[in-house]
């Protein structure tokens, strides 16, 4: 019986151990360089198969292309609702075959370009009778069944299309339960084509099977390590770690793909602070690319492991 008491004391003491007794869990990184291509509040980026970086400069209604070292290459797009024109786009993804997919938010559509910025085709995001006008804020290209996952921010849904623009299915409603959303934002896919959705005002990242079945939720609301206040960006690295940006707290945090907190992106044990970090990407070289929306730049980091 005495031993049982000891057991119970041990068990219940674990969660109550003050965190401050532990050092900040860090994932240390090294600053490589930053890219300042003259964007105004850039939101998201994607890395092309050739290593070029495509940055959504939505307020200027264009996409800026720089090479892997940050050197300017070109830009495409202009304000408008015609082909190849944008109205404040936010999200981007690039398929393995070199198609650039842009979430053209205020035009309520997805536009597709080749890597040179030539317009290929576009399709409107559908609107159900009970919905407000679609607000596609991100698009993710899946290798599975040519699926395109689109987060319809203001309708709190994930809508799935074929790459050719044919609607497949959708899931989600406004709410706080699993598979419900309050303003879904940036998307990311892992190697298994599982989809990660930043659920902004629910302060979490939800993980789904390709069919939309809920798998896990990552993070919770708060300001402690492992918690989110305004999660915005998500990326999966080569180790299937989930990296999440928080635009208000200005930090990036790393989780296992089941949501176990690993650490905060740090510099020599101190958290790195970014200026409204939003879109993230990990390139083939394993570099972490961070879009700083109010910093108007991309910061390129290297994991130190």
């Amino acid at each position, binding site marked *: 019986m005495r*031993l*049982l008491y*000891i*057991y119970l004391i*041990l*068990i219940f003491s*674990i*969660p109550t151990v*003050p*965190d*401050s007794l532990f050092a*900040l869990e860090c994932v240390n990184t090294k600053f490589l360089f930053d890219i300042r291509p003259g964007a*105004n*509040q850039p*939101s998201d980026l994607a890395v092309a198969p050739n290593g070029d970086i495509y940055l959504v400069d*939505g*307020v200027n209604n264009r996409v800026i292309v720089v090479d892997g070292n940050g050197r300017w290459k070109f830009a495409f797009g202009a304000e408008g609702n015609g082909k190849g024109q944008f109205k*404040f786009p*936010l999200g981007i993804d690039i398929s393995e075959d070199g198609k650039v997919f842009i979430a053209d*938010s*205020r035009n309520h559509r997805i536009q597709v370009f080749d890597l040179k910025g030539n317009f290929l085709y576009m399709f409107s995001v559908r609107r159900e009778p009970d919905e407000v006008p679609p607000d596609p*804020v991100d698009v993710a290209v899946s290798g599975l069944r040519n699926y395109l996952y689109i987060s319809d*921010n203001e309708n709190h849904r994930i809508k799935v299309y074929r790459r050719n623009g044919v609607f497949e299915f959708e899931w989600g409603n406004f709410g*706080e*339960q*699993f598979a419900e959303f309050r*303003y879904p*934002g940036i998307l990311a896919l892992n190697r298994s084509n599982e989809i990660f959705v*930043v659920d*902004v*005002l*629910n*302060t*979490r990242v939800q993980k789904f099977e390709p069919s939309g079945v809920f798998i896990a*939720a990552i*993070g*919770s*609301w*708060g*300001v*402690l*390590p*492992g*918690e989110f*206040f*305004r999660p*915005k960006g998500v990326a999966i690295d080569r180790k299937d770690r989930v990296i999440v940006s*928080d*635009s*208000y*707290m*200005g930090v990036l945090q790393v989780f296992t793909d*089941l949501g*176990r*907190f690993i650490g*905060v992106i740090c510099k020599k044990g101190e*958290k790195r602070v970014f200026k*409204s970090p939003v879109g993230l990407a990990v390139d083939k070289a394993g570099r972490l690319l961070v879009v700083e*929306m*109010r910093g108007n730049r991309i910061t390129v980091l290297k994991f130190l492991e």
Partner: protein
Amino acid sequence: MCPAFKTAKYLFVLCVVSVIITAAVPQRVSALEMSSKRDCVMCHIMWLDEFRTDKETLVEWQPGNVLMKDTQGVVSSEQICYSCHDGYVKDSRDIVWKFNRHPVFVKPSENVTVPPELPLSVKGEIYCGTCHSAHGKGAAPHGDPTGRTAVYRERNVDSSLCEMCHRRQADYKTSNGHPLHTTALKLPEKLYMAGAKRATEKDKVICQSCHRVHGALGERILLISNKNSELCMICHVDQKNVVDTKHDLRITLPREKNIKKQPVSESGPCGACHTPHNAAGGKLWARPLKKDAPAAPQLCLSCHGEKTPYKIKRTGKYTHPVNVPPLRGGQPEWLPLFAEDGTKDPKGRVQCFTCHNVHTWDPNSPLNKGGKDVEGDALNSFLRVSNFSSNLCVKCHTDKKPVITSDHNLTVTAPEEKNAQGFKASVSGPCSACHVPHNAVEKHLWAKNLPGGKDFVSRLCAACHNKEGAAKKKLIGDNYHPVNVTLANLNITPPPLPLYDSAGNKTVSGRLVCLTCHEPHTWAPNKPVIKNYAYKNMEGDATNSFLRKKNAPSSDLCKTCHVDKAFVDGTDHDLNVTAPDAKNLLGQTVKESGECGACHLVHNSPNKIKLWARTYGEIVPGEDVIDSLCTSCHSKGNPGEKRIPLIATHPDDKLINNIMRSDKNAIDYAPIYDRKTAELTHVGNISCATCHNAHQWSPLVREKGSGGNVEGNATNSFLRNVSYNNICIDCHGLDALFRYKYFHDPLERVETSPPGYNIVK
């Protein structure tokens, strides 16, 4: 293994497993919690309990009591706002963060009065929360007609929230600001496309008609850039024509600054002269104004006045009057009147911009901008309407309009004649051939160089009517009606025709000058508008010739002053009665010359005596020359040939003194004339005019004649006086009654007349 050990081993394994499970499962899954507190903390981050533990947080705790006024907590920080409004909850990237917005984190300026309901930060600065609050009175769904939106702290009906602080701008009437809440001007759709907020009433001007609190493209949170007055010109379309004209100060005075110390490169072409708030005066005037003088004239004269440093297009000493009531007290046709502050007022006064539209160089072609160095003329020069053919002048000076159909329209009769400014009449127009509104050489806005001498008005006429002038064929000759004389001896009060002083001003005590009888703007007084006017040096007569009154067939103009001569009407001496076909020296019948003109020529008379219009009659040697006037008719072959006295002379060796009978107004007036000059004198001989007043049939009846050829007797017959009180009595006593009766009867005369003396054979 003892049971205790087994139990301990079991517990240890259980403990380890528990620890592993505890570590593997995410520690906090509170995202699933439905919590009103969580929704509050969505913005009120500092309310999180985690800040009140000893755990290390990813952001620092910043205390700040948002429930207290005059504070700014993190909840109202820009970072909190942006964390949702970055496009991933609401998209305000362009509205709030791309373009210009209302200043925040600055202290309100002196021009702004922030009411207590709108809090400032602890530093006394404006912050997001000054206007916004999720819990304010203005919190309601977007598009709410009462002016509430999701996050206004106070309701914002027609920019009422703006006006809470910007009170001076709201009280535009006293602060000389752009009108608000007016619907006078139609607001174009283009304005709304540029981002203007629609008011509760169509075309109502509100702060947000021009300003956009967030997402403004222009400086001073204007909807669009206004550096070239683009915003002003969306509504004020007509004023857009000012661009690239001389009144676009970017061209003419690029270094000039307005009262806000803004150079024209900053203020734009409109802003050089107008400012929407806190202007110097009416018309949103943005240039200095003197407080002790009417504003309206200053608007123009602050640049074009004589005492300004600009020296550009000054108006000169003699310039058209401004700030004066319109002629005849009404609004001139097509032209606006203005109050003293420069605002349009149908009951106002004539101001510079009554004639000038300062925003359009060429009224007929707004695309014609003139240019910096282009000299204007009557067709442009920012005139409100083209002054071609003096069209603008005659809109007010309607009584001068007849000049256009007269020989005084120099564009027709002397198109090459230049005014003092060097403009040919064909360019300047009919009025400006003689008058210019600015920089005239003399009074009456006179536009021609004046000859010297004479009275002022005569000099005006003589500017053309001289031997070298444009009217050299219309001179008055050596013998003409006296000018520069008073009417005192005519004893007419008030004067029936205008008199002028030496400076050319009209005055009742003035002198008779050309303009007394002539109205140079109207060819024929009874026909101000002449159809089919020949337009070229028409020969006039007494019915026209720019006379103020028609002077034929009745000489009404002459008789206006020469009242005592007017009794000639209807008598035998009115040739309308007795000799309508007789012609004077100009070849005019009495219908053309008038009855006065039958005997007198006002201008160009070859005869000095009484400006006689006929060939002098014959007189016998020793007879007074004045009698030749009578014999010009009363002689054979002439109109008065039936009334030729057999004898008409008094013995010339009997000189007569009329000193007691020389009062012209007395009943016994008996003038004596110098024999040779016909001037009045007191000692001489009796002539016809001593006894006869050719202009009055009967001495006792001062009235017109009967209109028939009447046979006279001793009581009329144009006799000057009655027989019992005439000059004959002075020498002849009562004998004079007989002598008087038989003066023209050589047989009845007591003394035989010298043979051959004026006896018609």
